């Protein structure tokens, strides 16, 4: 069979099924409409939702009229935020939990295999589950909407504000449901899948927005918060609106390389890319359950996109100072009028550049775990290559080594990191300071030892050896170093902490950036420890790359010996 024939046969008969976008005709969607919208169960939920939303509506409205003596228009606005929070609980929390739990339950019960065998397109299956599993939650949100619509209408909230807010509310819901679907697909245990998806949403709204305070502004666009902040003045009584608008001017806006995007557009763009990427992951898994979550090319482009948005959001905020944590804390403490003498602390760029490196390295590791083949995948790939009468893998095939792609990502990561460091340090806030070009080399070294080294270990020696390395090289030195640090052994701690690749970006930042307030012994041992362990890392990398090469050859040879393959790689 030729490749083309195989592909044609792999596609479901397009005439037999409605297009994937016709969600109402999707069998999986209709199945869940049937099972999750049974009048008996649904009526109780509807009653509860009506009760709670009605309570919030009348409570806020009446209290504003009676006790706050607001006029009718202002009073009508007051229930909006409470209703939005309630709707968020239903759609974001309950909906995502339902998607993750429902998906794992299907897998647990074994009925998921039936859907695997159904000759619908993978995309139709993903969409069917995405909108089918949380259908009850959509209905419950719909039930609460009359109260919101009344408040929006009688509260004279501009239509474009209402559309922005609820548009983002919906896309954020879809995005969180996709995380639930992914968790349900990847995590085998129902309870863990549920907890993982809940945990992701919790992190998105609590921990991850804090990263914005350290220069990683992009992460707040995976929530509805930026759009909510933009719409906020229109959701509160009009006499407070002016103050809120003043406050809003202090908040960082959605600047992307100084292009002034409306918050809603940039949030849609950010969430859209994540939605499409997660859809691709699920599509790949439905198409072939052994597939990597992402293809190598997609992962690389996605990594590049993350670098682009991290930089694009952060760099325009340097000039105004809005990117610096101390400025954010000042605002938080209520000092809205920033004094003219405000100046970022000298340690701030060091920490911010270090954080940027850690996040870049972490994303590199995540991509690596998604696209690196194990020995079995590789061997299987060789056998298939032989079966199809080909001589080698395509560079983007799952069984092909991910090394060239990791190299590309590490290069992009180092470059992005260097640009961030340079723009930050050489800004008007640190007159006379500069980041040496050598810093690019140091950053590339960190990416090579921590990123490529781990990749060579993972692909060459397998997940077991990599897991041990994570524990004994990645985690243990940080734990021991931290304990010793608190005991006063700061030099030993500095040397120990430098072993861990997680700390390497912080060290690189500390070595390359001006740093004034650390003790003399630390200032002396920090660069030494950094360069020493990076040298060790480079030697290890060379060994691991040699091991990877050997491993690739051994697998090719093994397949050859089985008479299944024509040797041609390496």
């Amino acid at each position, binding site marked *: *069979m030729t490749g083309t*024939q*195989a592909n044609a*046969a*792999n*596609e*479901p*008969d397009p005439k*037999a*099924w409605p297009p994937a976008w016709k969600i109402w005709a999707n*069998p*999986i969607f*209709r*199945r869940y409409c*049937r*099972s*999750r919208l049974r009048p008996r169960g649904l009526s109780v939920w509807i009653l509860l939702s009506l009760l709670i939303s009605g309570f919030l509506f009348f409570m806020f409205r009446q209290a504003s009229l009676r006790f706050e003596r607001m006029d009718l228009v202002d009073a009508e606005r007051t229930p909006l935020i409470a209703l939005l929070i309630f709707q968020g609980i239903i759609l974001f929390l309950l909906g995502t939990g339902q998607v993750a739990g429902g998906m794992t339950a*299907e897998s647990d*019960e*074994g*009925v998921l*295999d*039936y*859907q*695997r*065998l*159904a*000759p*619908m397109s993978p995309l139709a299956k993903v969409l069917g589950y995405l909108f089918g599993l949380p259908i009850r939650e959509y209905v419950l949100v719909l039930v609460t909407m009359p109260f919101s619509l009344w408040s929006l209408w009688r509260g004279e909230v501009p239509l474009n504000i209402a559309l922005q807010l609820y548009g983002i509310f919906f896309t954020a819901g879809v995005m969180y449901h996709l995380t639930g679907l992914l968790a349900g697909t990847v995590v085998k245990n129902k309870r863990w899948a549920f907890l993982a998806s809940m945990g992701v949403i919790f992190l998105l709204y609590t921990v991850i927005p804090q990263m914005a305070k350290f220069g990683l502004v992009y992460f707040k666009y995976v929530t509805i918060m930026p759009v909510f902040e933009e719409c906020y003045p229109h959701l509160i009584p009009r006499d407070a609106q002016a103050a809120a608008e003043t406050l809003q001017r202090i908040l960082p806006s959605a600047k992307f390389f100084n292009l002034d995007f409306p918050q809603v557009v940039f949030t849609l763009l950010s969430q859209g890319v994540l939605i499409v990427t997660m859809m691709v992951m699920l599509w790949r898994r439905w198409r*072939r*359950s*052994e597939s990597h979550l992402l293809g190598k090319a997609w992962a690389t482009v996605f990594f590049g996109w993350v670098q682009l948005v991290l930089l694009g959001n952060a760099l325009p905020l340097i000039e105004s100072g809005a990117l610096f944590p101390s400025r954010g804390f000042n605002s938080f403490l209520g000092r809205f009028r920033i004094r003219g003498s405000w100046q970022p602390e000298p340690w701030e760029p060091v920490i911010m550049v270090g954080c940027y490196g850690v996040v870049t390295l972490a994303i590199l590791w995540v991509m690596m775990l998604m696209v690196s083949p194990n020995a079995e995948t590789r061997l*299987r790939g060789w*056998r*298939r290559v032989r*079966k*199809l009468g080909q001589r080698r893998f395509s560079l983007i095939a799952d069984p092909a080594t991910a090394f060239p792609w990791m190299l590309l990502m590490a290069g992009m990561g180092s470059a992005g990191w260097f640009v961030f460091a340079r723009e930050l340090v050489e800004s008007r806030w640190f007159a006379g300071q500069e980041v040496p070009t050598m810093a690019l080399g140091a950053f590339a070294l960190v990416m090579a030892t921590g990123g490529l080294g781990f990749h060579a270990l993972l692909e060459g020696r397998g997940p077991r050896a990599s897991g041990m390395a994570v524990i004994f090289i990645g985690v243990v030195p940080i734990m021991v170093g931290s304990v010793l640090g608190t005991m006063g052994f700061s030099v030993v701690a500095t040397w120990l902490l430098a072993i861990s690749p997680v700390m390497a970006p912080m060290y690189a930042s500390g070595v390359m950036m001006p740093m004034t307030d650390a003790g003399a012994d630390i200032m002396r041992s920090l660069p030494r420890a950094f360069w020493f362990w990076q040298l060790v890392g480079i030697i290890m990398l060379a060994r691991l790359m040699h091991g990877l090469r050997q491993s690739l050859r051994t697998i090719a040879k093994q397949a050859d010996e*089985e008479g*299944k393959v024509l040797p041609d790689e390496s």
Partner: protein
Amino acid sequence: MSAGTEGAIEIRDLRVDYGDFVAVNEVSLSIPRGVVYGLVGPNGAGKTSTFKVLATLMEPTYGEVTVAGHDVLEATSAARRIMGYMPDMAPVPSDLKVWEFLDFHADTHAIGDAATRQVRVAECLDKVHLSDKRGAWCRALSRGQTQRLVLAKTLLHRPQVLILDEPASGLDPLSRRELRMTLQQLAKDGATVLVSSHILSELAEMCSLLCVMNQGRILSSGTADEVRRELGRSDRMLCVTMVENQDGLLTWLAAHDGVHDVERDGTEVRFGFKGDNSGQADLLADMVGAGLRVKTFEERGSSFEQILVEVAEGNREQ
């Protein structure tokens, strides 16, 4: 690849590994169209792994598998369209009613509009004698009823190839008989039915061809008699009751070739017999010809079971 003159199912050099454990080891099979083919073996023989590969639910370590001419690894969707798979311990969703479950699967296979699906669902329910359970919750069905429901689901899209993993487990004798008749009718209508069991006699009754697997390998394949012969166990246990003259039967049996271990138990005489179906028919003819007045003559406690018992015991000894 288009369907040619080859078998409905072709398996070549199939191997399935779970880590270091080899579940299926270099299995090759060719199953012709329009037969009920039985795959039998003790637990852990590799039946379910083989079925999962055939059903496109698992990638083999290596090997080539085609179903009605479609390579299950390269033309997965095409293979899925013409195949029906019923897993072992077939699960059903707890939140659907019987008709809803079938209607949903009819929908996923694009079997016409709601009215057409309704007719097809009724046909399949009728086929497995579950029409009276149409409105019942799937979770309320007994094990046997669940098996039959999943069989009905498997039949919905009129598959050319049916892959049924232990379909008779949990069925009462009457349902087993009905299952046998249903499968034989499907084969008569042109479908190929591949069915597994760890009860060889059960398969011997319903299958035209058999394959015995153990520890991932094929021990024997062919007709029931060929399997018996190849495995060197052509013994069968026969049981005769007489209108009169049991002593005469005992004497006659003692002098007959191939008969051994004769026992008398009340009105019955049981004995072992070494021979195939034809030899068994000749034995009965000779018995009647010798003037013995035979009331009943039946094969009992099939030595097929013995074959599997010995195979399983062999595994344990290893």
